[in-house]
């Protein structure tokens, strides 16, 4: 009898403990703000590696200079993971205070009522003057504006650049990067060669990955458009688009190599490739990993000079308490100030978001260090933004998968590939 009692006691204890454990877990997560006058807020982002280190360093500096604010920088590692965490946190009514977001997510967050309008802060007492707003890279504020309200703020935006191996160029008698498509093709032809005389090609003119971004740049350089003006239909399957994709296929499959993911950057760093296109941020990842003389150049132009931005903005979440939102704005304002954005750009290769940042000593030093970086950032004057609707974000996948990939893998000719991609994109846009 006694034994039996003991056993059941144990069961009760177990049950009670588990209920307690569950309820404790359930109650956790609430912000236990200490009454020390410090506003603590969570900033979710996807910066990893050298980019994460740079961001953490700047956040730490901000915290040091603001005794009343403490930003907790939380890296989700990748954009996909970040999007999932934001989604789950919105569903659970526990969003962060500040987060990196793509335009398509912003649109969804605005419709959800989760994104705070920043117009009040921009025009408020701790806001920005018209002069300061005009100092932003053209289009950046407009790209963050929906229905006349500013909902996001430019944070980490990059453009494409040409990375070229000066030594490999010199060996075939070339002294500068190509400036137009004809030169681009002629140069990769020259650079594709057998360097050790064994009858096999061991240096390719160029290399790249399957990338909608690269195609979009070529498309607009060739006078094409991604979508129709009203944004309801694909326009990339035009003759200009087909020509651009044919050019891309010729570059990357005749005189270059298509690799999975970022392997092409490793090949370039190993000196096996003449030149590659990449994001300006690739610089942070390549730094110190190559031994040859390398320089950057803007993308070669064709009918037009054109370049698309990539990267994200930040939003402040509407559900946060006012003092946290104000503190988050303070951080955003600080981060996008000319001095800080210049340092961020120098550390990472992201574009500075302010024009005046280019003239600051920190940027000038960086321009002196990295040959051609100034000419790459000169693209910011005419760089454009992709369509930003959630439907395009979903449809873009088809442009990459059905259009660009099918052509680069020689499974379809460019015109068929783009027609198939346009059908898939149109179906997505129609919904």
């Amino acid at each position, binding site marked *: *009898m006694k034994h*039996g*009692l003991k056993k*059941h006691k144990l*069961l009760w204890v177990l*049950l009670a403990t*588990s209920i307690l454990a569950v309820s404790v877990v359930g109650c956790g997560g609430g912000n236990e703000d200490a009454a020390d006058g410090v506003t603590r807020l969570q900033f979710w982002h996807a910066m990893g590696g050298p980019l994460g280190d740079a961001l953490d360093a700047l956040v730490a500096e901000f915290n040091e200079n603001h005794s009343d604010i403490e930003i907790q920088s939380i890296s989700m590692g990748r*954009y*996909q993971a970040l*999007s*999932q965490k*934001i*989604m*789950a*946190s*919105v*569903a*659970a009514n526990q969003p962060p205070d500040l987060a990196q977001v*793509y335009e*398509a*997510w912003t649109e*969804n*967050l605005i*419709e*959800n*009522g*989760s994104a705070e309008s920043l117009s009040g802060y921009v025009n408020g007492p701790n806001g920005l003057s018209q002069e300061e707003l005009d100092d932003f890279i053209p289009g950046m504020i407009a790209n963050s504006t929906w229905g006349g309200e500013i909902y996001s703020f430019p944070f980490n935006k990059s453009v494409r650049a040409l990375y070229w191996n000066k030594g490999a160029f010199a060996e075939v008698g070339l002294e500068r990067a190509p400036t137009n498509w004809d030169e681009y093709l002629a140069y990769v032809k020259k650079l594709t060669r057998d360097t050790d005389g064994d009858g096999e090609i061991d240096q390719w003119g160029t290399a790249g*990955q*399957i990338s909608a971004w690269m195609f979009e740049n070529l498309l607009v350089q060739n006078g094409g458009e991604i979508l129709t003006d009203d944004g309801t239909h694909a326009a990339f399957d035009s003759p200009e688009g087909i020509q651009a994709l044919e050019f891309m296929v010729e570059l990357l499959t005749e005189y270059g190599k298509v690799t*999975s*993911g970022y392997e092409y950057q490793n090949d370039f760093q190993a000196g096996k490739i003449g030149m590659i296109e990449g994001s300006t941020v690739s610089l942070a990842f390549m730094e110190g990993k190559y031994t040859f003389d390398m320089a950057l150049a803007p993308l070669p132009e064709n009918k037009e000079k054109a370049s698309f931005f990539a990267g994200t903005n930040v939003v402040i979440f509407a559900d946060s308490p006012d003092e946290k939102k104000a503190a988050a704005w303070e951080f955003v304002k600080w981060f996008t100030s000319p001095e800080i954005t210049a340092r961020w750009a120098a550390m990472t290769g992201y574009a500075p978001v302010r024009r005046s940042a280019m003239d600051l000593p920190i940027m000038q030093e960086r321009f002196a260090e990295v040959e051609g970086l100034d000419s790459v950032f000169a693209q910011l004057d005419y760089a454009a933004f992709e369509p930003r609707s*959630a439907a395009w*974000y*979903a449809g873009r*996948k088809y442009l*990459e*998968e*059905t259009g660009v*990939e*099918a052509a680069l*893998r020689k*499974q379809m000719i460019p015109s068929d590939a783009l027609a198939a991609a346009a059908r*898939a994109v149109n*179906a997505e846009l129609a*919904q």
Partner: protein
Amino acid sequence: MTWLETLRRKKFMDPLTAAFYLVPAAVVVMVFRMVPIASAFVLSFFDVKMGRIRGFVGLAQYFKLFQDPTFFNSLGTTAYYVVGVVPASLFLSLLAAVLLNKKIRALGFYRTVFFLPVVTSLVAISMVWKWIFHPRLGLLNYVFEVLGGNAMLWLEEPRGIFEMMASGLGWAWWPDGLSGPSLALIAVIIVAIWRGIGYNIVIFLAGLQNIPDQYYEAARIDGANSRGVFWRVTWPLLSPTTFYVLLSTTITSFQVFTQIYLMTGPPVGGPMGTTKVIVYYLFEKGFDAGGNMGYASAVALVLFLIILSLTLVQRRLVESRVYY
């Protein structure tokens, strides 16, 4: 005398004890299985974006789904995967189980070897196999080239294997719809079979050891040869186990996700979407940017119905041949 003891005296205690033991598992199953399944069913009728319910849309998402070519492509890819994995896995694991059921030397060693992939982290397995299949640096192409074969693209090859065979035979033309699963999907299938047989072997071994020895003795006295013993004794008496393995392998194959997520791409599901199975498609819709959770729930429900009806059909067709 406490009330517990009173209960015990009245023979009340046994069901209560049972309930105590069941509660933790029941809570876990409710919270992590039943409630999500029910909410997925409900959400499939709502427009849900980025974590917020925007409104009731009725069957609209189902109509959309049935007009979505990517949905049908991913269903086809999943079908290829299931057909590629299930029979091969069943055959190989049964063969290995029968051999491992013999009294051979170093039996424990062999059993461990076959079971190792099952207890190894799927992430580690996927990474190692991704390297083995690497077109330029992988082990497999190295072996092929040493043996005088041609290097293949493996996980980066979007062409269907039938089409590749046809072109290998020198045929210039092959019908578009019949190109078959891509070589990339075949590579994933190979890994799935390799990983899965260890588990099935253990189940088969248990089944084999449940067959009483006297049947084998009787068969031997009657002069049956080993083939006769297998088909007349082992196979029928093993049929409940075989049926279970068939069902569970089919269901888990339909739900394949992790390997696709870790081994294919970038972008995942590549090359050219030829490894985009239905559960990854669901994931892409629901958890990738924009988070169209309502639509993803509709996909999940359709998948659920497919698996359910397939299981019922399998029961109908196969169960009459199962001897319990």
